[in-house]
């Protein structure tokens, strides 16, 4: 029944569509849907998929690689460098602590020390796929919890290189036999001494950075010039495949390599293009990966010794949770952020599949030990979303940052209610200025550390996703006069704009936007009050430059006002023009064309010379003419 590739594809796709839409309908994470679909189509329930589940798993790990590439794209090198302390600190404590405790556990359970060590290594690693997918789905990437999780996962990606290098040293057989037996894992480095291995790893990282700048970006430019859309998709895949191949060849985790590649490309003009191209594929691959995990749960092994497996599973999750909680505590996370961290990373990750089968290949683990650990790994991954739900629905509401805290409001604040969405750099300035005028905005934010701080400062703050109608309603949208969208996420602003237009049309919206393209979209949704965050700042800077060159300040001030008015007019004019290309690259090129048009127009219309006020030159000319006649 499992022979045809077409049939397998149908099974996977149908399973995904059915289970994920049910999971979503129930308000659960899509991860649960995929895992459930995997269990259903796997060998022990419906039997559509046989033992090839593990091959599919290996193939689908590519989703994780793509995910890290995409995460890398969103992190600029400078930010990555700023995170180094968190990565080393949190990651180090988590991996070290977990390894120590689980080593003790497995030693006590009577495993040989080598086995206990290998297992504890596998246990220390968490699942990037599950954790990051959940974090992204809940849009928590920019919270303390999000960055902490990410740092830990990144550290694990790095440390796994060393684990893979270390495990052969534990091997019970001589080197030749192991290499022979395990040819699929042969890589360039196995035969080299440790010093050369390190050198090769450093070289390949440098290679990625250099290639990113001088090979990949020029290639993408060439590809973009052809204007053939699918070539860009091909190029995006070529990049990810290429990096993965190189990394596997030198023995580094391909995910880590892809992440680095992403970071290198995050400054290029192709960032958005690559993101939008790979995003859907990444999600499909990850879905496939989760299904493969579900399908690989070996129920026969579980049936053989359910109590042992259940016991070890619970013990491992408990160990991981405790270590994570302590890690969060050392790094001063708020209680609810700590709990989110604790429960979202308390599983054994996909690296375990690699480490365990590698160790099995080297005769360190027995077949039984490996099967048991693989089952525990798959089960712990499947349990994560469920534990997450318990945390979210039952624990957090009691102890975490509450959605709202009631506070008596004075009369003015009540009758002129302002809701401020987002209290980052932009929103906080607005909030401070309003407050200095005795106007207290009701703030909506999704970073609980910030929310707690603001509450201490006496602000009325609601915690959560501002695109939820119920949260907006409890924040008082019904009696609000103005909603300020100070978030930098255009999707959030668009969603709020839709809600307001549909349900509360009396509320005035004032929206921050990043650039003119976001402004176009919001204007076309019927919003009038659009504030481009960079317009006035850049003009102020330009004004100061000209002032330093000797231009008069007051004249410059007037010209800046002219320029703003002129630019706002052209913004509104261009917003109504039909859009032909949605594609980022073509849009970027169009943007350049548009800039050129602007510059020409500025020149022709002569913004600077247009202002003739107080200029006595033309009066003098008129007087001269009269005299000459």
């Amino acid at each position, binding site marked *: 029944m499992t022979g045809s590739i077409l049939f397998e594809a149908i099974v996977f796709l149908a399973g995904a569509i059915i289970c994920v839409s049910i999971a979503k309908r129930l308000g659960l994470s899509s991860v649960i849907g995929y895992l459930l679909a995997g269990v259903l189509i796997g060998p022990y329930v419906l039997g559509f998929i046989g033992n090839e589940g593990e091959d599919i798993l290996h193939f689908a790990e590519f989703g994780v690689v793509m995910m890290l590439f995409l995460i890398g794209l969103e992190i600029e090198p400078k930010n990555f460098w700023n995170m180094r302390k968190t990565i080393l600190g949190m990651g180090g404590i988590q991996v070290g602590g977990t390894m120590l405790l689980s080593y003790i556990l497995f030693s006590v359970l009577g495993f040989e020390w080598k086995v206990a060590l290998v297992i504890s290594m596998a246990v220390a690693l968490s699942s990037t796929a599950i954790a990051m997918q959940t974090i992204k789905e809940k849009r928590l990437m920019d919270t303390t919890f999000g960055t902490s999780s990410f740092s830990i996962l990144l550290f694990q990606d790095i440390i796994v290189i060393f684990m893979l290098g270390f495990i052969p040293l534990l091997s019970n057989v001589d080197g030749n036999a192991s290499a022979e037996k395990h040819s699929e894992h042969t890589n360039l480095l196995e035969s080299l001494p440790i010093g050369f291995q390190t050198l090769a790893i450093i070289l390949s990282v440098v290679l990625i950075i250099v290639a990113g700048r001088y090979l990949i970006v020029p290639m993408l430019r060439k590809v973009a010039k052809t204007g053939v859309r699918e070539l860009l998709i091909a190029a995006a895949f070529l990049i990810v495949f290429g990096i993965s191949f190189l990394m596997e060849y030198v023995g580094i985790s391909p995910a880590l390599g892809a992440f680095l590649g992403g970071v290198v490309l995050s400054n290029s003009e192709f960032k958005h293009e690559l993101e939008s191209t790979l995003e859907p594929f990444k999600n499909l691959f990850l879905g496939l990966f989760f299904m493969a995990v579900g399908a690989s749960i070996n129920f026969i092994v579980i049936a053989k010794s359910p109590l042992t497996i259940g016991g070890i599973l619970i013990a491992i999750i408990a160990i991981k949770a405790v270590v994570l909680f302590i890690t969060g505590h050392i790094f001063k996370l708020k209680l609810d952020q700590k709990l989110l961290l604790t429960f979202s990373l308390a599983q054994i990750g996909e690296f375990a599949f690699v480490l365990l089968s590698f160790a099995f290949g080297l005769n360190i683990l027995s077949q039984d030990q490996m099967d048991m650990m693989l089952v525990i790994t798959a089960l712990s991954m499947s349990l994560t979303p469920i534990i997450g739900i318990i945390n979210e629905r039952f624990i957090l509401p009691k102890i975490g940052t509450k959605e709202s805290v009631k506070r008596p409001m004075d009369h003015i604040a009540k009758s002129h209610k302002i809701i401020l969405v987002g209290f980052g750099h932009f929103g906080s300035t607005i909030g401070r200025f309003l407050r200095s005028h005795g106007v207290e905005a009701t703030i909506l934010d999704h970073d609980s550390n910030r929310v707690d701080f603001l509450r201490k400062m006496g602000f009325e703050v609601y915690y959560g996703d501002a695109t939820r109608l119920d949260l907006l309603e409890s924040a008082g949208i019904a009696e609000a006069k103005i909603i300020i969208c100070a978030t930098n996420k255009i999707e959030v602003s668009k969603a709020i704009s839709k809600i307001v237009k549909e349900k509360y049309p009396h509320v005035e919206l004032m929206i921050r936007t990043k650039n003119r393209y976001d402004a176009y979209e919001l204007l076309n949704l019927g919003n009038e009050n659009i504030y481009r965050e960079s317009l006035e700042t850049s003009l102020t800077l330009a004004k100061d430059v000209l002032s330093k060159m000797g*231009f*008069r*300040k*007051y*004249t*410059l*001030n007037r010209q800046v006002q002219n320029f703003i008015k002129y630019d706002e007019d052209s913004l509104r004019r261009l917003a109504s023009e039909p859009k032909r290309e949605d594609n980022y690259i073509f849009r970027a090129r169009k943007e350049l064309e548009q800039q050129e048009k602007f510059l020409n127009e500025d020149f022709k219309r002569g913004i600077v010379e247009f202002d003739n*006020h*107080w*200029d*006595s*030159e033309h*009066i*003098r000319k008129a*007087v*001269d003419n009269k*005299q000459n006649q």
Partner: protein
Amino acid sequence: MKKILVLFSHPKFEKSRANTALVNHIKDMEGVTFHDLYERYPDFHIDVPAEKELLTKHDVIIWHHPFYWYSCPPLMKQWIDMVLEFGWAYGPNGNALQNKTCLNVITTGGSREVYCSEGSNSFTIRQFLRPFEQTANLCGMSYLPPFAVMETHKLSDDNLNKNAIQYGNLITLLKDNLTNNDCKGFSFINDIHKLNTP
């Protein structure tokens, strides 16, 4: 030696031939503080304490400005409104400017002839400057007749330069304490004997 504060107000100084010549001639003179209001306060946000301190440190205040629509440019009016505060410049205890000297230095497009009851502007310069004169009076300053560079549109470069030199000479006289007695009988300080005897 008296200290001179030139409060200069021109919204488009870079385009003014006459004022460029006048200002260039006096702005670096010893004992003169040249204060370019439009450059200092392009957003009209006047630093009142700083302006008061500046006033206190000087003995002669010159309002130097083009004569727009028979008056001063808006920033200078803003300056008067904000800096000459009740209880400081006038009113009870408002004696910070007492006994200082004050005058207008103006540039006009029209000639002296058009500024009289028979001329197209119907009134004299001195009549148009009454608000400034009374402002000075209320603050206890002695108000001198204006230094006016007129018909600027027709003025040759040579003549403009002569005016600039005369402006410089006026400032030298002011430093040596020029009083209303020296100006008796003159509507323009340009004409007084001290400035016109070689």
